[in-house]
């Protein structure tokens, strides 16, 4: 038996509230996209510098930056 109180089925898009709801794609490219607030993240030196020039400079007692990157 069907209840007389059963509401008729209404297409989802006919509901004005549902119609306003953005699609998932619109959501992630709109209000839920990451905020633009860049922060610099400079790359760190994480390996020992084993270049001959650096070692030579160290051995000579002058850890001269100008020698770096020459090999």
């Amino acid at each position: 038996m069907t209840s007389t109180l059963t509401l008729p089925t209404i297409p989802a898009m006919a509901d004005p509230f549902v119609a306003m709801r953005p699609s998932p794609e619109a959501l992630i490219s709109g209000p839920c996209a990451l905020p633009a607030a860049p922060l610099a993240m400079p790359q760190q030196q994480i390996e020992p510098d084993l270049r001959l020039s650096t070692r030579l400079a160290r051995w000579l007692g002058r850890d001269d930056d100008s020698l770096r990157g020459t090999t």
Partner: protein
Amino acid sequence: MGWLAHPRGAALIALRMLALGLSALAGFGAFVLFLQFGQADGLQTLDVVRAVLILISTLWLAWGAVQALIGLTTSPSAPRINPSAPIKGATVVLVPVYNEDPVSTFSRVAAMDASLAATGETANIHFAILSDTRNDEIAARETLIFAHLVEERDGIGRFFYRRRTNNVGKKAGNIEDFITRSGAAYDYALILDADSLMEGETILQMIRRIEAEPTLGLLQTLPRVIRARSRFARAMQFSASFFSPVFARGLAMLQGRTGPFWGHNAIVRTRAFAESCGLPALRGTPPFGGHVMSHDYVEAALLARKGWLVRLDDDLEGSFEEGPENIVDHAKRDRRWCQGNLQHARIIGAPGLRGWSRFVFAQGIMAYIAPLFWLGFLAASIAAPLFVPPPDYFPEPYWPFPYFPPSEASKAIGLAIGIFGLLLVPKLLIAARAALLGHAREFGGTAIAFASTVAELAFSSLTAPVLLAYATRSVFQVMMGRDGGWPTNNRGDGRLSLTEGFVASWWIVSIGAAGLVLTYFLAPGLLFWLLPVGLPMLAAPWLISWSSQPAHSNLMRVPSETTVPPVVALHDRILTRWDNAFPAPDDARVEPTSASGRSPANA
């Protein structure tokens, strides 16, 4: 006793020296005992080699035991800050995902948000889901379920989602991408894994602590393993809940300003992280070159290098993670960690690192190469009888009675007892302390806690040879230049049949059988001693299959089973609802994975 719980300066140096000294003493003791044992039939070169191998292995075992013994001396304590201080800074909770099931992962976000809301605190806390998912179908599902999450939690303006087009740098690159795009919007970033779950109150306390201590760059919690179902997973879960807090206490006492970062369930000061933790690719190609795999240890070391405080607060509860359900998934994850840790050999000499950071790298490397020393010791012991000269019972030419060299077997037995003691005593002491302090009640009472400890010891002794075999293979693979990549783990039901167990471990069976046969022919006297290693290897397929089945025992209970933590209960309810609303396609749920996280629970 606060100074002992968090020693500084001279006290810290003294404690570190004591820990290292005791470990060295145990190693040296084993070395001397073994040399005395070897002298019984004439000291050979191979005896000295074996003595050195046993020195290194014992030293490593003793280091673990000493950490536990130190940890037993104090209890975790909270730093002295106002636990209800208003929160001023903005925080983002970062949830990196990689091909995980979005229903599982995003429902965790919903649960944590609900848990935060329940605290009544109005702090500025956002969630950012950072997708590195490669599978387009899963990615489509991510957007759909994200929209549901936003709607259900009224999350516009608080919840964010982005998917990278390429996943350069893997998880570390994913976080770095966020920091460089959006990092300036937040003072703090709570870094999670896809399977992380944290109580709202815990998140708030972490923010308050990092806010109260301006030099604190990273605050790590001790995550507890939850939701274990199989025998293997429950043993890991029990170990993580019962033993790990004491080991972590020892670690916290030794950490100084250079604490650990396990990749997840930790909060960072965004500015400190940005200025310190930009990771370049290492020179050369994987496995030793390329992107840093185990980035967490490196980031902790780099923060400390810049003068930031990195701290483990082991008093913080309400931090959870999940673990692998079977030995094979554990071995897959361990393969990745092995490569990551061995890669640190390239970083250990980086300029400016603190001494303790270098020591932590060495410790990580040692954790994976230690099985090689045991393997070397076993191989040398099997081969040793080939090099022993026949006994000379008549060393004096005209003496009519035979001379029997004194037996040094008691020294060998003493050595074996000592080594087993290093493995067993810390765990037994932890159980005794739990009984004395009443913690055992949370684990089912004193009797159940002790029985669980014995069961865990038996289980870990049985599975150790199999796990060591996998770890040894991983080391050889990395040494041979094979890159393990970034595989997805399965953490679903995890049951494995005997056939699947055999496919995964036939080579372990073969090595175990070959080892026992060789021992029988070359050194039959050693056969009995090698059975505890050889038999589990022969039974590896059965062990893998048996341990992957659901556990029904009353043993290995943990507090989160007796009293389900609020956020876990919340997640259970949300997950059930979402599972019904979004059934997995083909009923083939992709279960959550851990991209890189580690913790002592899994150590």
